[in-house]
């Protein structure tokens, strides 16, 4: 059943992405001031949306673990956080390349970029911490605390472009009252969010299966040592 869901999601996401890429590259005009480079927004924004929501979801699952002590919450939190870190990396890389053309520099130490980089480092540390601790409950407890701290930072990063004056552009999406894009230019962003969310779900399902196999290995090892 899981295999069928994965294949179904992959086909749907692939078709949606192909259709949307066609719209982005063949139907949308260049932006008046930025030219062709503005199209990076169609990957930069969806990747960062998925990164931020994933970190937030990971935090809720971590709280779920702290309340229930059920390791399944921890496994799901680890899977979601790892995949979200991949999307956050895409967001950072694409943003930096866009900045090179528009700002003339690869990086600026403004509130948004710095807080998002700190967030990326915190969740990188989260994954390293998980590898460093063998005892499952201790690992889950420490990781949950880091996840909560990291997610608070992710929220600060999300709001930073409203709270402070930043080099990073102010909100442009209509749901944040940005209104800086024409409707025809904004829609493909949301289609890409949907397509990448499907890919994200596939990756989380694969990671969850790996967590289950790792747990089985741990259990068998304990049995072998007990014999």
């Amino acid at each position: 059943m899981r295999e069928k869901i994965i294949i179904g999601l992959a086909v749907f996401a692939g078709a949606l992405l192909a259709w949307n890429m066609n719209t982005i590259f063949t139907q949308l005009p260049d932006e008046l001031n930025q030219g062709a480079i503005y199209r990076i927004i169609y990957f930069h924004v969806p990747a960062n949306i998925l990164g931020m929501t994933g970190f937030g979801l990971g935090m809720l699952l971590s709280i779920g673990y702290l309340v229930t002590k059920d390791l399944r919450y921890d496994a799901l939190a680890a899977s979601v956080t790892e995949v979200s870190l991949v999307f956050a990396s895409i967001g950072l890389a694409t943003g930096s390349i866009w900045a090179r053309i528009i700002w003339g520099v690869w990086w600026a130490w403004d509130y948004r970029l710095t807080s998002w980089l700190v967030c990326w480092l915190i969740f990188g540390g989260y994954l390293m911490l998980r590898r460093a601790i063998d005892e499952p409950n201790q690992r889950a407890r420490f990781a949950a605390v880091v996840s909560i701290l990291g997610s608070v930072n992710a929220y600060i990063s999300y709001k930073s472009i409203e709270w402070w004056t930043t080099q990073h552009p102010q909100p442009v999406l209509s749901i944040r009252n940005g209104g800086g894009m024409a409707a025809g230019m904004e829609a493909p962003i949301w289609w890409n969010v949907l397509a990448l969310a499907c890919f994200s779900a596939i990756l989380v399902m694969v990671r969850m299966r790996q967590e289950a196999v790792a747990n089985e290995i741990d259990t068998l090892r304990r049995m072998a040592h007990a014999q």
Partner: protein
Amino acid sequence: MNRNVQYMLLGLGAAWLIMFIYVVLITLRERKLRKELDRVRRMVEK
């Protein structure tokens, strides 16, 4: 091709490269886990 288009393609390439590297890494991890599971199963059976 102007510099603007080159950097747009570089951005898209970077996005797909990061995703591709991650997919390769979890595929390798999957293989390693399966091998380890088989090894531990055989160890328990003995």
